[in-house]
């Protein structure tokens, strides 16, 4: 990089070029006569404000090379993040969020300026936009953006009023998983999770967002499973109350679900593909089904907060995460499906298929991606009344 900035003494120097240089170097070039006094004045005029600001704020000089991100654990793993840190002589500090609401609360507490970046799931994205805690994304600053699968470039959960607010980098469906040894005919409907013949062998994810999945079974089916009226919520509650005596366990995280299959506790459940892979690695004979009613799905996006200190560095990081190193890092570390078509094309076919990246257009059509549930407090109450009362 240094050689690009050495200055030809016989050529006039633009201020743009000068600002790339260290002030000390500019000064020495002026002393040796290679920079005119006028250019020097321009240079200090250009950097003046920034320089003064950094003097006043003290820590700014350091902050220029550091990013603070609030993320799901694993999204800034040392294994791949180090490559970006070394290349940019920068550092990314991460705070792990416990849930979407945890991230929302933390960002709101700081008015969007206590973090530069957030990895938001699609149940959180709209809330961050509504609360003006994140800023619009300029895709021209992301060299890897054109390589993203079309469906993930401007999906509705990060695209509001013709403005894009996030870079979608990971996703996955919530599918139906069953033990092929004990259940010999593949189930075709989510009704299997309410089927008495599997009593005591059923598990379901312990999260109120799952109300949307069970809303798929309502007759008539709601137009939007994420916006339910009181009757529809009561209908889902009836299903869940009916289901509870059949449940062996409510699972809380993917690794725990895999363990339930490996230890022979359950035969059927909703599941995430990465948990399926874990269960299979543990020796469980399980297979996935996409029920005829459709499936729900999650998707994570990098968003830049409204108060981000160093927006350029944020773009640099996001671009890295959309590129081969970041995408492979997320895939290998978390076993989540990724969004960069070029990287997907480079994967072995069985891995591509196991995470539904083989024919995304077709799979994507069957996924009802999560979105903001405006009355989540009510959903939680219904979920708790059905599962804990």
């Amino acid at each position, binding site marked *: 990089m240094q050689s690009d900035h050495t200055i030809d003494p016989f050529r006039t120097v633009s201020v743009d070029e000068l600002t790339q240089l260290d002030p000390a170097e500019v000064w020495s070039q002026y002393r040796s006569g290679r920079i005119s006094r006028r250019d020097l004045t321009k240079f200090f005029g250009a950097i003046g404000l920034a320089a003064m600001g950094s003097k006043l704020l003290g820590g700014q000089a350091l902050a220029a090379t550091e990013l603070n991100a609030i993320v799901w654990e694993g999204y800034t793993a040392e294994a791949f993040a180090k490559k970006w840190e070394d290349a940019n002589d920068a550092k990314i500090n991460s705070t792990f969020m416990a849930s979407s609401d945890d991230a929302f609360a933390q960002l709101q507490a700081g008015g969007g300026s206590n973090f530069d970046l957030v990895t938001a799931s699609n149940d959180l994205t709209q809330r961050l936009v509504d609360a003006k805690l994140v800023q619009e994304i300029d895709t021209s600053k992301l060299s890897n953006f054109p390589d993203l699968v079309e469906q993930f470039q401007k999906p509705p959960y990060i695209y509001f009023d013709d403005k894009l607010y996030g870079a979608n980098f990971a996703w996955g469906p919530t599918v139906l998983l069953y033990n092929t040894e004990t259940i010999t005919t593949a189930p075709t409907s989510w009704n299997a999770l309410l089927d008495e013949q599997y009593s005591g062998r059923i598990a379901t994810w312990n999260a109120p967002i799952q109300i949307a999945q069970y809303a798929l079974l309502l007759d008539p089916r709601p137009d939007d499973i994420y916006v339910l009226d009181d009757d529809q919520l009561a209908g889902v509650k009836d299903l869940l109350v009916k289901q509870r005596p059949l449940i*062996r366990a409510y699972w809380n995280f993917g690794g725990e679900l895999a363990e339930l299959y490996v230890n022979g506790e359950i035969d059927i459940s909703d599941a995430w593909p990465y948990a399926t892979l874990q269960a299979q690695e543990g020796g469980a004979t399980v297979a996935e089904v996409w029920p005829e009613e459709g499936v729900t799905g999650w998707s994570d996006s990098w968003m830049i907060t409204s108060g981000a200190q160093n927006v350029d560095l944020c773009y640099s990081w996001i671009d890295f995460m959309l590129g081969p190193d970041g995408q492979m890092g997320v895939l290998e570390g978390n076993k989540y499906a990724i969004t960069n078509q070029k990287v997907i094309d480079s994967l072995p076919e069985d891995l591509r298929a196991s995470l539904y990246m083989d024919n995304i257009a077709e799979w994507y059509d069957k996924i009802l991606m999560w979105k903001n549930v405006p009355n989540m407090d009510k959903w939680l109450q219904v979920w708790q009344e059905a599962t804990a009362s």
Partner: protein
Amino acid sequence: MATTVAESKLTDQPQPGQMLRGIALLAPPVVWMLVFYLIPLVILLVYAFWSVDYLTVVRELTLENFKTIVTNDLYPRVILRTIAIAAIVTSIDIALAFPIAYFLARKVTKHRELLLMLVIFPLWSSYLVRAFAWRTILGTNGILNSFLQWAHITDQPLTFLLFSKEAMVLTFSQVWLPFMILPLYTVLDQLPKSLLEAAADLGGNGWQTFRRVVLPLALPGVVAGSLSVFSLTMGDYITPTLIGGPGDQLIGKIIADNFGTANNWPLGAALVFPLLLVIFTMLVVANRFGALGRSSV
């Protein structure tokens, strides 16, 4: 300074220097408690009287949250279940810890420190790991079921061993046991031997000595241990989530989800009130038994 001097003269109490030293010693913990405990607690309790509208907390006083807690039978039911489970776990731990503590304090002469270390040892491992260990032991194909089938005691795995109230109580009892043993050990260790000899001289048998001498003197330890075990159980939501059966949720999980999933801090804060009430009542009772002040031993 003037007042300190005046006070010390008035009361004929410690010199100003000592006084200052006392304040200096007390200040850090007092400030710590104030800033990191009392103030956050008050803020939390204030939230209970607010409400939430989509993304913003509406800072207008309302009793709506308390109305919800009283009228929706979910909350009273879960709170009562929580208190019942906590009471059962506490009783089991008293029954288990008393003989262990008595043995350690009165019978063991050699390797007492080593045995005490063994009591504390489980606390060195992550709580989550211990809860998961119970899943391995109690599971359908777990250690216990495998043994029962191997020994031909059962011919089918017992499924109620895991994901049930019983499993939850068992796990809690094991996990919190050291918190009961240690205060009991402390009081029993201080029990003067002469009192036991006196009881024997007066013709008291083992049971009478226990009931009329040992137990009353050990009561502060029992109460202190019970306070710990009871409140630890009442606030926990990991064991009910991982070990409890479907529907066996305790109030901790309900509160955590209101903060962490529904962004409904006001309702979550309001649910803290009944718990504080229970704990406060226990503290008042405990105080009467001398478990909080200098014990009567």
